C-alpha cells in the first residue's frame, strides 16, 4: 500500500510535468527533470516526510539537484 501511495504521488507529479516544462525556457532544466530524477526526488520527500528540522532534507535536496546538473554536464550538455 505504501508503495502504491508513493507511486500515486509520482504519477501526479509526472502528470503535471509537461505543463511546468512549457514554462521553462531552459532546455537543460527540462532535460534534467527526467522520470528518474523526479522518482529520486519523491524518494527523498518520502524519506523526510516526518522530519521537523528541514535543514538536513534541504541539504539533501540541493545535493540531488547539484548531482543531477553535474550528471547532465557529464552527459555532454552544452555549457
Amino acid at each position: 500500500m505504501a508503495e502504491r501511495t508513493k507511486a500515486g504521488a509520482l504519477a501526479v507529479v509526472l502528470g503535471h510535468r509537461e505543463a511546468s516544462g512549457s514554462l521553462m525556457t531552459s532546455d537543460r532544466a527540462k532535460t534534467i527533470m527526467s522520470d528518474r530524477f523526479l522518482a529520486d526526488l519523491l524518494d527523498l520527500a518520502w524519506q523526510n516526510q516526518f522530519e521537523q528540522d528541514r535543514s538536513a532534507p534541504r541539504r539533501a535536496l540541493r545535493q540531488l539537484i547539484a548531482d543531477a546538473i553535474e550528471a547532465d554536464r557529464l552527459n555532454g550538455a552544452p555549457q
Partner: protein
Amino acid sequence: MRFLRLAIENLGPYCGRHELDLNVTQEAPVVLIHGENMRGKSSLFNAVKWALYGSALGRRGRAIPSTALMSLDAIDHADYHMLVELDFEHGGVEYRLERQVQAVTRPQADRDLRTNVSLRRQGHFLATEDIDRTIDDILHPDISRFFFFDGEMLNQYEILLGDPTRDSDLVRRSIEQILGLPALQLLEEDVAEARRDAAKRLLKGAEVERRNEALVASIRQTNDELEAIERDIREMRDVREKASAEKDRLTERLEQFGEVQADVRELDRMDADLKDAEERQKHAQESCRVLLRDSWWMPAARLARARAEVLDATAEEAAAHLQHLADLRARSTELALSRASATCSLCRRPLDPGTDELLAAAEESVADELAAASSPASDLPTILAERKALARFVSEASLEQLATAERAFRRAGLDIRRLRQQADAIKDRLKEHDRAEISSTEMQHEACVRQILDLDNKIAAAEGRSVEMHSKLSRLQQQMAEAPGADPRLAVEAALYSGLSYLLQQSVTSFREQLRVQVEAEASDIFRAITTEPDYAGLRINERYGLTIVDRDGREIRERSAGAEQIVALALIGGLNRCATREGPVVMDTPFGRLDTRHRENVLRFVPTLGTQVVLLVQSGELDRDRDLRHLDGVVGREYVLMRDGPTRSHVEAVH
C-alpha cells in the same frame, strides 16, 4: 512492520516477566487476546506504544506517566523496574526494541526513573541517537493512531462524523500525514526555499556587471511579483478552506433544519394557495353580485317561464286558427270565381250543367264555416309582444352562470377553511423553531457558496498570473545565463528550481484530491462489507475528511445509531490503513463495544483483511469465544487469555 514477540516485566497487572509470541502468517494474521475488564488488555496495548514511542496515551489523549504503568505488586515487593521487549520485522530485517525504566527507591514520579532504550537490527545495536529516527521511519507516532486504536479513538472519529468542523484540523492533518501528503507539501516548501536562494545567488553573481543592471532589476521585480502572487494564492486558499468549513457547518445545520424547512416550505406553499383561494372566492362573490344585480327577476323566473309556456301555446293556437281562416277564405274565393266564369278554377274547362248547384252548396258550406270560425281568436301580436318581453327573464344561461359562480364561491370557502386548519397545525409544530434563524442560516449558506465561487475564480486568475510570472522569470533567467559574468550552471539550477516549484504547487492540490477519492473508495468498500443495511451504498468524504453515509439514490443519511457511527469510523480507519504511506500491524483494543450481533459478525470477517497482522484485544461482552470464533475460523494465528491472579495481578495463558 510485523510484530514477532512481546515480553513485559512489571507492567500494569503483569508482575514479573510475561511473554507473548505474536509471530503469525499471512494466512492466519490474527492474534486474539481475550480478557475481562481489569485483566490488563489496555496494559498490553499501552506496552506496545510505550515500547515504541516512550509514552502511552490514556483517557482524552493524555500521556500516562511511566510510573503509572508500573506494576503495583512489583513496587510493593521493592522491584522498581519495568521492561518491555518488542521483536519485530520490517522490510525483511529483524529488530529487537527494549525499553526499560529503573528506580533506586520507590518511584513517585517519572523524574525518579532512569530510562534505558536499545534497538538491535539483525542482532547489532544501533546508536542511541538513531533509535527514534529508525522507529519513526518504520511507523511514525503521528500516524500510529491509525494502527493502534481503541474505543476512545473510535469515539473521536464519531465526533468528527457528528460535527465535521470540530477538531477537523487535527484530524485532517493526521489523516493527510498517514496518506503521505506532507511529503509533497514539505518538498514544495523546500524547493521554494531553494528557488529563492538560487535566484539570490544568480543575481548576486550578475550584479557585478553594470551591463546586467536592467536584467537584474527585471528578475528581481518578477521574483517579487511572483512571490506576492503565490502569497495571495496561499492566503486565498486559506480563506477558501475556512469558507468551505463554514459552508459544511451551515449545510449540516440546514440539514438539521430539514424537517422544519419542509414545514416552512409547506407553509409558504399554503400561504400561496390560501391567497389563491381567497382570490377565487372574491372573484366568485363578485360574479354572483353582478349576476344577481342584472338578474333581479330571478326569483320570479319560474313564474315567467310558466307564463312564457302559456303564451307559446296560445300563440301557436292563434297562428293555427288564422291559417284555417285564410284557407277557408281562399276556398270561398275560388268557388265564387268558378261559378261566375262557369269554368273550373283549376283546369279552366267549362263546367258541366248542374255543377253550379253543387258549387253553390259548397260555397254556402264554406261561408258557414267562415261564419263559425270568425269568432274572435287571441290577439297574436299582443301575445308575441308579451312573449318577447318575457324572453330575457326565462334565459337558462344566467341561471347556469349563477350556479357556477355559487359553486366556485363555496369551493373556495372550503379550500380556505382546509388550508387554514393545515397551516395552523404546521404553525403549532414550528412554534419551537425560529424561522428567522433558518432563513438567516440559508442566507449565510448562500453567501458562503458565493464566496467560495468568487475565491475559486480569483485563485484561478492568480494561478494564471503565476504561470505568466514563472514563464517570464524562466525567460529572464535564460537571458541571465547568457549575460556577461553570469554562471550558466547557476542559471540552470535556478530554472530547475523554478520549474519544480511550479510543478509541486500543482501536484499537491491534485495529490490531495486523488488521496481523498482513494480513501473514499476504500472506506466505502469496507463500509459496504460490514454494514448490515443493504440500501447503504457507501461513504462520502468531504475536503476535511468528514464522512456521511449515502444510500443507493445518492442521498445522504444523517441520522445514525451509535453502532452505525462505529461502523463508519472503522471503515474510515480501514480505508486510511489501506492507503497509508506506511504498513504496520493493527492493534485494536475493545473495538466492538456497541455493535449488534450481525455487525460484529461482519466486522470479524473483515478484520483479517485490515492488515498483514491484526492484534485484537477483546472482552467476552463483545466477543464470545464459543459463539463468535467461527467467524474467525482459520485466520487466528495466536490466541491468549488474560487470567486473574488477584485484584492487581494477571498473567497471560496461550490457548494454542
